[in-house]
C-alpha cells in the first residue's frame, strides 16, 4: 500500500505509523461519568465499513502527522492532508 504524504509524495506504507480515527475528543476528567467517557475514548472505535479519515505519522520520512482518507472496503486512498495547519503553513 502506498500513502500520499502531502510533503514527500507517495511513499510505501512501511514508512508510516498508524494512530487511528480522527475526531476523538478528550473527555472532561471532572465530569460525573468521566470513567465511562474515558473508557469509550480509549477503547471504543467506529470500525466503519467505507470511507474513513485516519491519522498517520510519516515516522520514517518527514515526520509529519497527516490525515488520510481511506476506504476500508476497497483500501483505496482518496486523499491526504497535513493534520496541523502549522505543518501546512511550514510546507508551503
Amino acid at each position: 500500500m502506498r500513502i500520499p504524504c502531502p510533503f514527500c509524495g507517495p511513499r510505501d506504507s512501511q514508512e508510516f505509523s498508524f494512530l487511528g480515527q480522527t475526531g476523538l475528543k478528550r473527555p472532561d476528567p471532572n465530569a460525573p461519568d468521566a470513567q465511562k467517557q474515558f473508557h469509550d475514548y480509549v477503547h471504543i472505535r467506529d470500525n466503519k465499513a467505507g470511507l474513513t479519515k485516519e491519522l498517520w505519522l510519516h515516522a520514517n520520512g518527514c515526520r509529519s502527522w497527516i490525515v488520510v482518507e481511506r476506504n476500508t472496503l476497497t483500501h483505496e486512498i482518496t486523499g491526504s492532508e497535513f493534520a496541523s495547519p502549522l505543518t501546512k503553513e511550514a510546507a508551503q
Partner: protein
Amino acid sequence: MADLSLSPRSALAPFLHAGHHGAEGKTGVKLREVTACALAELTAFKGQKAALIKSTQNAFGVALPAANKSVSKDGVTFISVSPGKWLVTGEGAAEHDLVERLENAAGSLAAVVNQSDARAVVEISGDKARSALAKGVMIDLDPAAFKTGDAATSFAVQFWITLWQTNDAPTYRLAIFRSMGRDLLHWLESSAAEFGYDIHG
C-alpha cells in the same frame, strides 16, 4: 594554558577497511565516509519561513530548497527534510563556521541545532551505486524519478535516512544517526559486494 580545542572523531573510521572488496576485477561502487563535514538542522519558527528564506538567501546566496530537493553553494548544502526544516552540511572552508553563520542568518526566525556529532554521512558512487542502494532504499532511484539535486527522508533496511544525489555519476550521500553507521556500512558492503567495491579511507 592547555590547548582545549577539540578535533572531530570519525564515526566510521574503525569499520572502514580501505581497498578493494567484493567481486574481483571490477569496481561498480565506491564508498567513503564524508569527514570534515559540519552538520546542522535549521527549523523555521512559526510564521517565519518566508523571512528565513530571504535571510539565508542573503547570507549564503541560495534559496532554501522546496520539498524533496537539495541545493549547494560554496561548500554549503541545504537539504529539505521536513516542512520548514533543513539539514545543512558545511565542507571545506564552510566546515568551521557553519553553525555560527546559520545562527547569524537565522536570528530569531529559526532554531539551529548542531548535528555534527550526531550524524554520520556516507558517500556512495559509481555506475552500480544505484543498484546497490536499490536493494534497501524504499524510494524509486531511477533517473526518471530521482536525479541530481533530489533528496528524500526515507527508510532503508532498518534506518531512518536522509538521502540526496550530488551528481550524475551517480553519487549519493546518506546521513544517518552515527551510532547506526556500522550497521549501515555492513548493509552497503553486502549490497555492493556483487559489483566489486572500493573503500576510500
